[in-house]
């Protein structure tokens, strides 16, 4: 087990700034905040800029004073609108479909399922139907496994309801736990005939600020197109998917990915 670290000073200070702004009139300049908390002006400014970046404080354009941000009021609800996500991801999703030759979908969590928020056709100009708005099971799809892998409470909610769709669907909780640990280790997920016989898919996480997983982007198609002869996803395709996920994440403000 790792050693429990002590409290992190900058987080304590950030909390103090939020408490201070929540009091009284709630609009304070950087010097007022620094004086109230006994901080150096530069330190207070750095913390305020960070809080502003995540939307927890806002700065008035004219007076330069700070107040609590709107994001604090919506902490419980999804902070990224799904239509906003599609709009930010659309160019990279197109490029992924063009490179991989496969259909692309972007999914976000909704009531224990995967909501398809964006779909790019397989680039062969055959007749295909748009399935934006469709709900997919989480445990039997690559997109869903990505969303589960980074959300422990969603996994807990799923216990006992692992419906089989094919012979290869993961239906045992401990098998799912093992699969999700593997997803976290590798940074991507796959599905091989677990939802539909003859179909396979690969997906990777889309991260927002601070690394929070806000969705998953992935490709899917016939097993022989997605997988090699050993039945594993082709490394080149995995690279394309992960590159696209990273590009979208960077656009959303996730710095490390």
């Amino acid at each position: 087990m790792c050693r429990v670290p002590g409290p992190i000073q900058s987080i304590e200070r950030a909390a103090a700034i939020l408490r201070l702004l929540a009091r009284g009139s709630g609009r304070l300049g950087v010097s007022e905040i620094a004086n109230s908390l006994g901080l150096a002006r530069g330190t207070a400014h750095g913390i305020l800029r960070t809080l502003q970046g995540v939307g927890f404080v806002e700065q008035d354009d004219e007076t330069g004073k700070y107040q609590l941000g709107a994001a604090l009021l919506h902490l419980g609800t999804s902070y990224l609108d799904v239509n906003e996500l599609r709009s930010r991801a659309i160019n990279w999703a197109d490029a992924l479909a063009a490179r991989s030759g496969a259909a692309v979908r972007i999914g976000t969590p909704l009531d224990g399922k995967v909501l398809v928020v964006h779909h790019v056709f397989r680039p062969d100009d055959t007749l295909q139907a748009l399935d934006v708005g469709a709900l997919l099971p989480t445990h039997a799809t690559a997109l869903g496994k990505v969303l589960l892998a980074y959300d422990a409470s969603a996994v807990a909610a799923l216990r006992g309801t692992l419906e089989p769709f094919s012979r290869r669907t993961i239906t045992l909780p401990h098998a799912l736990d093992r699969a999700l640990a593997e997803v976290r280790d590798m940074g991507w997920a796959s599905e091989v005939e677990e939802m539909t016989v003859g179909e396979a898919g690969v997906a990777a996480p889309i991260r927002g600020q601070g690394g929070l997983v806000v969705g998953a982007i992935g490709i899917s198609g016939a097993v022989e197109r997605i997988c090699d002869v050993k039945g594993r996803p082709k490394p080149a395709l995995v690279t394309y998917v992960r590159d696209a996920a990273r590009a979208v994440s960077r656009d959303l403000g996730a710095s490390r990915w």
Partner: protein
Amino acid sequence: MVERYVMSIDQGTTSTRCILFDHGGRLVSVTQREHRQHFPKPGWVEHDAMEIWRNLERIAPEAVAQAGATPDQVAALGIANQRETTVLWDRHTGRPIGRAIVWQDTRTAALVEELSGSPQADSVRERSGLPLATYFSAPRVRWMLDHTPGLRESAERGDVLFGTMESWLIWNLTGGPDGGLHVTDVTNASRTLLMDLTTLDWDERLLAFFGVPRPMLPEIRPSTETYGTARRVLPGVRIAAALGDQQAALFGQTCFAPGEAKCTYGTGGFLLLNTGTEPVRSTHGLLTTVGYKIGEEPAVYALEGSIAITGALVQWFRDGLGLISSAPEIETLARTVDDNGGCYIVPAFSGLFTPHWRSEARGIIVGLTSYITKGHLARAVLEATGWQTREVVDAMNADSGLALKALKVDGGMTADNLLMQIIADVLNVPVIRPMAAETVSLGAAYAAGLAVGYWPDLEGLRRNWHRAAQWLPSMDPSRRAVEYDNWQRAVERTFDWIRPAGNDGHGGDPPPG
């Protein structure tokens, strides 16, 4: 060194972008920089041409570096640009004369009204294919010559040059004051009101009518042709194409056959229909314009329907009303209700363009009852783009004698699935989004690549086009008819709002035809 990429420069209204494309037409790297919008007076919109040039100097090498490439791996570069924006500059110093006057600027309203009264005004549309309106370049050139002491004399001597943005950039890229090439392409020239649509050359009578001296004008060249080689920024790279942005989108959507059309949804909406090698004169309020001209081949013409306000209505909903915090949220809000609740918004913010050309019209929200929520308003915002497209398509069908079978769409608003479904529903044809949403940039790259043999022919380009999404109409025909009737009644209610006596902001675009 193997030539691996083609670069496109998209010099747009709010920003300049450089994109490298590979042989499959796939995006490899993107760099972008916004420039300042100057609003010195109501109705005035200006850009600093020098700022735009400096932005290009910075982002073009960045795009090459981002791809891990070197300039000698770039086979050619093509330019797509905001149309009609007018730059004047000093040939000897390379400095712009004042700021560039942007296409949205309406300062020439009084001048245009005065010119419209002249007996020769009728021939303007016949020769140029365009209505006499503030939207186009010639009245702006005249305005600058009239308002800057000594400028007319300098222009007559050829010391001062005129160009739209592509001319300005090509002149600078090819050396600027030190031997820079002063050229434009047929599509940009076709938006000045100064070019004869059939000869594709400057028309002496139009030049005389607007009072524009010929020595200041660039040479008109085909859209795809190697104009010259860059001596600055990307030394040695061939400059091989220029197109107005909407024409570039037509090219990027590979609408190479007569009857093929595309609609680009951005701030405004622009539907262009390829009409082949003969210009089609509109009797339904459309513009006749050059679509593209490949080298020595005959020019291909287009009919254009221009909608002034599409995405700009969503921006107003966000910034003016504050009902949403980002543009894509309009879809989220609109989906909170099943229909418009009987409410219609006609965004005639500065009059109506195609097919009405009513400069005295102003916007309305009609059908308000206590039942209406912001969700209904959001739906009415999206439906306004749908019905405005329908009006343009009806005009296209009437002028061309063809019935549109499918609409190819592109631009930022195509990320809005509800809007795309609405457009399919009101047009009653499938709406198709291609795999490259950046069709303006792609079109400029295609044109440049074609000129230097990076791509062999139009058929090769067509094979790069793939369908990324398709929306099929699913609206009950009787409901479509009722809704369209409601929309048309709403549009009628916007007419005649600005009274001639007040004359404030009035007197822009007269009805063409």
